């Protein structure tokens, strides 16, 4: 039974640390949110506009997903705040019984809108509807996320590409993010049923990251995100930042690294002590005809799959790969090839497979942590992806060595 020393409770969540890897910083935990418990570490698929790319909520549920993302920016435009208020939030809009996490909307301002400018007030941008100037403030972001009713809300942060050489601007962004968190906390109307997570900024400067950690932790949000990453920085730098931050974070709060989704990145980040991840890559790459498998990414449009009547991935337990006898659809590579970029059904099928792959990978990671065999799991994972140890990416070998797993040994 869990003792109180491994449980943290906030008004709208409970975090229970279930197990720790005896070698690395990996952890297994249960995060109980307003719409039910989720098992960490976990990957969260991105249902940008309140739908996961052609899947019904039931199909998403079947992959094992109990927490998915919606994007505040997109829902703010369509269907818009008034509609969300009238309907009663995003859960009711999309018929999703489980948890939703929303970003603050700030990242899209920067990634999709070239003309966004950031001031102390907030993010100024031109409306994609009519080109009129608009302002997204921490208060407005909170108001939108309150209307959405997400189980986890993210603070509005000042996002800067990590590779920016401008140290002064980086410091300004980090400090502003802290000030904006304070404004978010004040503006947040439903702390009893919606969790607000802070986002640690500071680019690749580890000292700045540590300073930001201390400031953010002082605000005592129920969960903590590490932001600004996955923007093109070197993987080694990425690992150093995650490692530096997790070293300072409390054990009994969930840690979310934003925008991470490649299988190798997930496994290494778990070893570095992170719990939650999201990325559009698995679903986007599905629409490009790519299947994510334990042996790497396969492009189903390649003609070598035209006559391949085997499943997308041997031994996979998703609805596509399981045979009809096993309650699945019994989809073959040949059939996906036949319809890839011709009928949207091929994209739906690969989306189901890829989301299942990501969630199942994390289920495997979690189970291995609980059974304290995470290091051998990691070795097996890399052995599945590469035929030779010499092909292992250097950054992963280095990062894992730092937490006690030597991939080159044995």
């Amino acid at each position, binding site marked *: 039974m869990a003792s109180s020393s491994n449980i943290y409770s906030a008004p709208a969540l409970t975090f229970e640390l279930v197990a720790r890897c005896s070698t690395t910083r990996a952890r297994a935990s249960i995060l109980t949110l307003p719409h039910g418990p989720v098992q960490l570490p976990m990957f969260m698929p991105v*249902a*940008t*506009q*309140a*739908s*996961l*790319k*052609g899947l*019904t*909520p039931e*199909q998403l549920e079947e992959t094992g997903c109990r927490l998915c993302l919606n*994007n505040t*920016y*997109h829902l703010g435009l*369509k*269907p818009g705040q*008034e*509609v969300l208020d*009238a*309907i009663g939030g995003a859960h009711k*809009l*999309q*018929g999703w019984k489980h948890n939703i996490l929303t970003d603050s909307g700030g*990242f*899209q301002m920067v*990634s*999709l*809108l*070239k*003309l966004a400018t950031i001031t102390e007030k907030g993010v100024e941008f031109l409306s994609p509807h009519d*080109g009129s100037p608009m302002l997204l403030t921490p208060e407005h972001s909170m108001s939108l996320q309150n209307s959405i009713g997400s189980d986890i809300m993210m603070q509005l942060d000042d996002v800067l590409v990590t590779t920016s050489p401008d140290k002064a601007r980086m410091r300004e962004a980090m400090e502003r993010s802290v000030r904006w968190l304070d404004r978010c906390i004040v503006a947040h109307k439903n702390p009893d049923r919606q969790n607000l997570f802070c986002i640690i900024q500071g680019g690749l400067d580890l000292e700045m990251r540590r300073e930001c950690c201390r400031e953010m932790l002082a605000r005592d949000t129920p969960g903590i995100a590490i932001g600004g990453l*996955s923007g093109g920085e070197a993987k080694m730098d990425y690992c150093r930042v995650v490692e530096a931050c997790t070293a300072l974070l409390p054990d009994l709060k969930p840690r979310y690294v934003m925008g991470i989704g490649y299988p190798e990145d997930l496994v290494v980040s778990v070893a570095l002590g992170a719990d939650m991840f999201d990325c*559009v*890559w698995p*679903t*986007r790459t599905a*629409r*490009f*005809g790519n299947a994510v498998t334990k042996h790497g990414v396969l492009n189903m449009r390649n003609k070598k799959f*035209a*006559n391949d*009547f085997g499943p997308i991935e041997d031994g996979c337990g998703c609805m596509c790969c399981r045979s*009809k006898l096993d309650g699945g*659809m*019994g*989809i*073959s590579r*040949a*059939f996906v090839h*036949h*319809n890839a*970029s*011709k*009928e*949207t*059904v091929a*994209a*739906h*099928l690969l989306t*189901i497979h890829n989301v299942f792959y990501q969630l199942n990978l994390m289920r495997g990671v979690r189970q291995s942590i609980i059974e304290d065999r995470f290091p051998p799991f990691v070795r097996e994972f890399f052995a599945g992806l590469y035929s030779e140890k010499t092909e292992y990416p250097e950054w992963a070998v280095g990062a894992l060595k730092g937490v006690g797993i030597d991939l080159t040994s044995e």
Partner: protein
Amino acid sequence: MFEILKSATADVGAARLGRLALGNHRVMETPNYLAVASRGVIPHLTPENMERYTAFDAAYMAIEDFLDKNPPPIMKMSKDTPRNLHSFTSFPTERAIVLGPRRFPAVTTPVGNGVKHLSIFTSTGFRNLTIAEFTKVIETTQPQIAIPPADLFHTSTTPPAKRQVRMVDRTEEWVDEFFHLADPQGRLKELGVSVFAPVLPVEYPLQWDYLRHLSEDVRESLSGLAIYDVNLLPELVNYPPLLSLPRLAFGPSKSPQDLLRQIALGVDVCTVPFVNVMSDAGVGLDFTFPPPETQEIHPLGIDMWTPDHATSLLPISEGCKCYTCTNHHRAFIQHLLNAKEMLGWNLLQIHNHWLLSEFFAGVRKVLSEGSARFEECSRNFSAVYESELPLGTGERPRARGYHFKSIAGQTRINEPSWQAYEGDSKPTSGSDTAAEPPVAPSA
């Protein structure tokens, strides 16, 4: 295989109730409809969603959808495994596949059919299909029902009589060659493949001899008729051996009124492409049979794009038991269409197919009460509902090459969704709505 349960008068030119055994213990109650598949799928529906949320018994597939490669992958499947087309398309085993040479409706080919071949359109271009190749595909894929090639209209639907005579002659030759190669009473029967012979859309005086041939010479090889012009149905009275065969109609079927007319003429199974068309148009079908008792004129469907649905928590059709109507609401569908999320079309497709299944169930129920009642309800249906399906106002899902034949200088049917405000901003990661892969250009 086909049993007529109830029929008025002389059996021709009158609606009838029946049961069509499709193998795998599935029995189709008739009148009923065939869903139209594209490249082996009902557009927008994964096989599991189709199995769970739709009720139709069978789908129509086209051989031309599977012949884009050389050699075609389906021909690489083992002849010794049953129902290869079901395996290839992961189609539910208990539902039937009706396989014909061309899509319905088919894209007009630049050159018409030849003496020994059909002209077809695959995703990689136009090519010829010989009767021998057609036969091989049927033997390998093993659909429940095969429709041998017919020499149908090319560009004109009213060609000169000489051309019509040639259509009849060729079709007869092709059907005979197919029977010769495939042996319907031997090999095909072992494989569980039934044959529905084509009845051409040409004037009766020009094809009476072909019909006589079907009726007298090859009747034993036939399990049904594929009728390309329902107006010919009354003439079948001249061929009593053909009367007990199930009749599968290929249009015209642009509205439920057309379907009622087909049924009234004695069609047992209607092929209905307008369901898919309506889903793509963002229209949720909304009609019942028998029709409601009302003085108002009702539209046959609801345009789900319009902003008045934005906060509506109503189902598409009041009282509809489909997955979409019991789990989601108009506001979500309107949002999905507006945001161009693929799920919008999926949900509409589920609803529209469900609604059509219910429509046919209603038709059968009314027919069981007598043909006078059916005629009365059909008249009321025409009085209560508008005569045409709504067009829909929004953008369609992206059209593919095999959906239409492109013309030089054609404009895009949909505008690109995300554009830079000024100049050159490139989409970056972070949003799932950015760049999509390019679509293969049409042939």
